[in-house]
């Protein structure tokens, strides 16, 4: 019983879920996607040559055998060789993941910083035109497709004003030796601006509206009345008492969003030609690059699971009313 047991239980659940996802991924790609060698036929490979390629990638073995090799490789941290690039999957994946996070984390950070603050403001100004404008604006941004907002930004800032770059993450040609070299430049920030704005605006609506709704709920509770009776200032009640309690659902949402961020905003990556993981996933599916596709989706699934668990655990610290319980009693 108690915290430790609860955490252990969650971790076991996590492992089981992850194993199921691994299995589904393996069979899903093999059953749904065409044979990876099919793409090579257009370049005039004969049947015999294709057989060689199949053997090289281990595709000539029975599916069940392939599955066990896949599990073994996963346990030993072996991500395999990409069929398309014909080189190790892991370094490619890591590079793309870094690029994706370099876009997604700033965007999520900004939207989860500003969103809840705006939410507080909206609930405070309940019934006013500000609230109305805020809700409409939030819903609008939430429902506007990101490729559309992205293209509008490209048109305005890239083509009409010509002040911001519209593609990639740095000006070419360039030389960068490591990942941090890549992002410690003003040039990177200039490239980051438009795609980040697109994503941040899209993500902004959710924490803002969740915050507002929860705030309104909490404002109706008895202890707020008590605070007012104590003569606390309105500002103090709002930020110190209501907002703090209303943050909980926002935290869960933030954790899930960060988990999903690994896959990137595929559409935004395409519109802004951002060299991230989302683009890589599309390409991997298109070329039936099983090892690449599996590893990318595996990573995304793993992160969503972990972030969810973290959010659950975090709850108990943020809200003492939530007690972690280990089991049956």
């Amino acid at each position, binding site marked *: 019983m108690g915290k430790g047991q609860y955490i252990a239980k969650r971790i076991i659940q996590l492992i089981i879920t992850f194993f199921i996802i691994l299995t589904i991924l393996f069979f899903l790609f093999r059953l749904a996607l065409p044979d990876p060698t099919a793409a090579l036929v257009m370049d005039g490979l004969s049947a015999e040559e*294709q057989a060689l390629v199949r053997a090289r990638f281990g595709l000539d073995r029975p599916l069940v055998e392939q599955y066990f090799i896949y599990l073994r490789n996963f346990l030993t941290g072996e991500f395999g060789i990409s069929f398309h*690039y014909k080189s190790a999957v892991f370094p490619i994946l890591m590079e793309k993941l870094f690029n994706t996070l370099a876009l997604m984390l700033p965007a999520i950070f900004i939207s989860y910083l500003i969103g809840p603050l705006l939410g507080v403001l909206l609930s405070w100004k309940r019934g006013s035109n500000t609230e109305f404008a805020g809700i409409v604006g939030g819903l609008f941004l939430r429902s506007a497709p990101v490729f559309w907002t992205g293209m509008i930004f490209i048109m305005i800032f890239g083509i009409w004003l010509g002040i911001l770059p519209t593609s990639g993450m740095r000006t070419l040609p360039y030389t960068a030796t490591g990942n941090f070299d890549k992002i410690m430049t003003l040039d990177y920030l200039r490239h980051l601006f438009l795609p980040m704005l697109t994503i941040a605006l899209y993500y902004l609506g959710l924490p803002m509206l969740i915050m507002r709704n929860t705030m309104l709920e909490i404002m109706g509770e008895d202890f707020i009345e008590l605070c007012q009776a104590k003569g606390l200032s309105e500002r103090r009640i709002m930020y110190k008492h209501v907002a703090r309690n209303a943050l909980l659902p926002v935290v869960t949402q933030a954790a899930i969003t960060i988990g999903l961020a690994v896959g990137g905003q595929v559409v935004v990556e395409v519109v802004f030609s951002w060299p991230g993981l989302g683009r890589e996933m599309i390409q991997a599916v298109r070329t*039936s690059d099983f090892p690449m596709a599996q590893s990318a989706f595996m990573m995304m699934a793993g992160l969503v699971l972990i972030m969810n668990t973290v959010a659950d655990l975090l709850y108990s610290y943020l809200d003492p009313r939530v007690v972690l319980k280990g089991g049956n009693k």
Partner: protein
Amino acid sequence: MRRKLLPYLFVAILVLVLSVGVSAQRVPELNIMTTTEGYDPIRYEAAFLIQDNLAELGIEVTVSPTEFSTLIQNFYNEQDFEIAIAGWSGRVDRLDPQHFLGTLESGQSDLGGNNPGGYVNERYDELFQLQSQEFDQDLRREYVLEMQSIAMDEQPLNILFFRDEVVAYNKDNFTGFVPMAGEAIYNEWIPFDVEPLGADRSLTIGTTQEPDNINPLDSTTVWGWKFMRMYYDKLIRLSPDIEPLPWAAESVEAIDDNTIEIVLRDGMNFHDGEAVTVEDVKFSYDYYQEQDFAYFRPFYQPLEEVIIVDDNTLHFVLEEPTSFFITVTLSQIPILPKHLWEDIEAADQLSPEDVPTVGSGPLVFDQYDRGEYKRLVKNEDYFMADEIDIDAVDFNIYADSEGVYTALVTEEIDMTAWRLEPAQINLAEQEDHLEVVSVPDFGYYHMTYNLRVPPMDDIEFRRALAHAVPYDTFINVLLDGLGERGTSIIAPVNAFWHNPDVPLYDYDLDLARERLEAAGYWWDDEGRLNFPQ
């Protein structure tokens, strides 16, 4: 009760027997497999246009838009199709007729081969052998022309259209582009032809396509090779008019049926400063054979051995006379530096950072970052360095063609490596700084019949169908005028090998009906086409 039921039963059986009798003669519903609308809206629409026209002939057709790699799988690997709409891209080594003619050779009709329709014609096969062994170009041409007549007459496939390659470049910054059939302006002549007009001497090319890798013994995509051929040199270079020019070779001469003598150019160096010698040339060809690189196998297969005669002379000894050896093999296989490759035992196992990128070509490899950027710089030491006016070629890699087009407009790039989308062509024409270039292609889009399935096994049926294909509608409506109607498998733009005298089948539904009728086909009361009795 029984007696009452009997007549009904009798009538029911009669109806059943009759309908089976009738439907057995009916031409069954046929299936056309084509690409999805997303992959290629033109092939997709073309299938529906053909469906409409065949309906006019009383032939029921269903269209199956199929995801591209599944289509390729069904078409080539499993030959599981009735009628398929597919295409061959025009690659420079396919200007030699060998490859396209081979797609109708009976030897390639096995599963996975290039002749999935299963066409067999003895005379055609015989001519295919003859032309592939004939060094005399004029004689070879005669064989090639006759093969085209046979294919056109027997219609194992119908060539629907040739699509123009429409690309654009920034005419304020660069000039001198020489378009090449099938390659448009992103071809091997860029270093020698393109001249900067302003201060910017780096030509920036925008592309969505990316090499699979840059290992000359592992890359199996056109985009890998289009990049690598810029920094590797070859013995022969094909001129923009597809004439084989001795390049790293001083001279190339067939001294008898099976032997080609090569004299190597003097004073060439690899980018690391080592001299290019006959040893390197021999090594390159031996190495490709030894490593058994499948993608190039058709190129080096006829080669028996390479003999070093003296310091700058080599003899290429062939197993049998091979007409395409000079035009294709010598112009495609790169010269590799022996000192960097000889110790590599399995070249396809190299990890990307270990792949040597040293060639002896007009440009020098500088950088490649996957998904972002590639860069080549001028080889100051090249024997034709005086002819090279640009300092570098940069490649920006975009996620989609929209990104490439935006970059053209914002002048981030100077030219496109691949065709513009139809909607972008009109927009590009309105931009003052852009020049739009339209180049005919020799790759073709075709409708291939599975000749193992009736009625496609009937030559008369196929001839009639050739009259039911709306060739002009494809060009005027689907391609916006940017293309040419399908003729022979060797396209008109490939002027030397194309047979301009093959009689074409015109779009004429009445004629199609007449031909079907003459062959004994007939229409039932419902207007459906029936097999000859």
